């Protein structure tokens, strides 16, 4: 990650306090803050207000690719090397459903992972961090210049931060 910008890093022990702080930050026009939570939390997610993650499109595309690949591969390979088994047509789509199904799952899951990594990487934002945020605290990092510091600190303290510190 590139250099962490200057700003204020707040730790919260209470989930409603952190949600209040997020709403207050948004009202005062802050957009580029980062929220850390030890577990996914609906209250925080609602306060931050992200839209639904685009990862689902990757899942869909991966699954469709898999099903197409499964049928095309098994059909083409049977035609390329005809094996007559049990008097069945050389390309028989019914047993190939199994192949297509497995590849749907495989490619769907693979694409989901790639989508997860891609989006999490693309949205990354250099921000200060504290080890407590994977333990039991919610963290908010607000990048801001020296002249904004007192206003941001005031806001975070009012919301109920247990600790606010300057990251420069």
């Amino acid at each position: 990650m590139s250099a962490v910008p200057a700003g204020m890093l707040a730790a919260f022990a209470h989930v409603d306090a952190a949600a209040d702080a997020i709403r207050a930050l948004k009202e005062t026009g802050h957009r580029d803050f980062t929220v850390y939570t030890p577990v996914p939390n609906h209250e925080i997610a609602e306060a931050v207000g992200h839209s639904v993650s685009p990862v689902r499109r990757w899942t869909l595309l991966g699954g469709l690719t898999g099903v197409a690949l499964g049928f095309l591969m098994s059909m083409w390979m049977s035609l390329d090397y005809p094996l007559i088994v049990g008097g069945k047509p050389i390309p028989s789509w019914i047993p190939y459903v199994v192949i297509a199904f497995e590849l749907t799952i495989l490619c769907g899951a693979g694409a989901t992972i790639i989508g997860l990594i891609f989006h999490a990487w693309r949205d990354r934002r250099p921000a200060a961090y504290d080890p407590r945020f994977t333990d039991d605290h919610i963290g908010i990092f607000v990048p801001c210049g020296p002249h904004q510091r007192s206003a941001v600190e005031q806001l975070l303290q009012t919301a109920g931060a247990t600790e606010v510190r300057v990251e420069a």
Partner: protein
Amino acid sequence: MATTAQPDRITVPHEQPTYAEVTRDIAATLGNPGRGYFVLLGCVVAVLGVGVFALLWETRWGLGVAGYTPPVLWGVYITTFVFWVGIAHSGTLISAILYLFRSAWRTAVYRTAEAMTVFAVMTAGLFPLIHVGRLWYAYWLIPYPNQRQLWVNFKSPLLWDVFAVSTYFTVSTLFLIVGLVPDIAAIRDKAKGWRKRLYEITSLGWRGTDYQWRHYTRAYLYLAALATPLVLSVHSVVSWDFAMSIVPGWHATIFAPYFVAGAIYSGVAMVITLTVPLRKVFRMERYVTVRHFENLAKLMLLTGMIVGYAYVVEYFIAWYSGNAFERASFYNRAFGDYWWATWTMLICNGLLPWLLWFPRIRRSIPSLFVLSLFVNLGMWFERFVIIVVSLSYEYEPYAMGHYTPSWAELCILAGSFAWFFMWFLLFAKNFPTVSITEVKEIIPMPRRKGAHA
């Protein structure tokens, strides 16, 4: 909630732990596990060594060292393959299907179950290769462009198995790793020394930011949604290895649901077998409680009932079909050369789970542990009965035979257990076997205005 309790009250086992305690207690399992652990690991590696020796011996001298006697050319290896694939299934059931059902009790046991899945598939996947004999041609199973201009037979259930098992292995491994990442980040922030380095790399830069969770929760949901039909399909495909052929005792439409229920049954038994000692060694009594064991026991009872029902239906259909070969095959199972294997299976899988109707037994961890060992044994014999006994007694009396496993096969069987337990022991020492994040998720986050959730 317990988050506001006085410090001295937090040690009460039934009190809900705080987030900090969850991290601390689960991170504590990763320290030095003591001498017993290394003694156990040493024994496991020694047994694995015996299995590897037998495998090398077989690789050198060929499949003749296995006890195959025509017409029984599928023996201990295929039995063990089906056994381990089956073991894997309850892991995905607990981690994916119960996740979609929002079943809160799964959080304490799902990591163990999921790791078990991955290691069981790793074990199972070896057996088709061992069974094929010439390990160096194993890659022929995969369709790849080759100079001989050959492709695989897509109409063969054995090839479906290649796709099903390799997909299952890949997806369950991805699922395990995705679930682990936030946990590794949590222990990274507590660890010191070389472990910190290890967890820094394996946590993949996880910090639990809003955008990370945004993508993560969605991705996890879709992975669970994909793993759910997958788990039901894999053992169905494995069952078609048998049901698609015309051997009496194999050619039945009940096979797919029968195998899936049996797989989950044996898998739940293995989860109990693994969790009971794990909980003691790592002092996880607070997180893995009797309630969790009781729920596992109920799951075992349910699937055991389905399996028992399938046994009855199999015998009924063999009689009701009026087919002489089916009738002979099933009579041979119960009263033929292998009566002991059949009765082991019927008693261990069909009869013993009835004990779980009694709450006293369901809630007693030692009795559950013993019962789970019997179910594991019974489920191995179930596959032995289906595979070996059916093959040994097909149509023509002059083509019937008797198969006895050779020393090499038994050593490789023992080695497979050692291989499985070795991976599990290494995993349990280095990664959290109880999910830190998911255990926290079922505890409401502390709120400012008093306790309500």
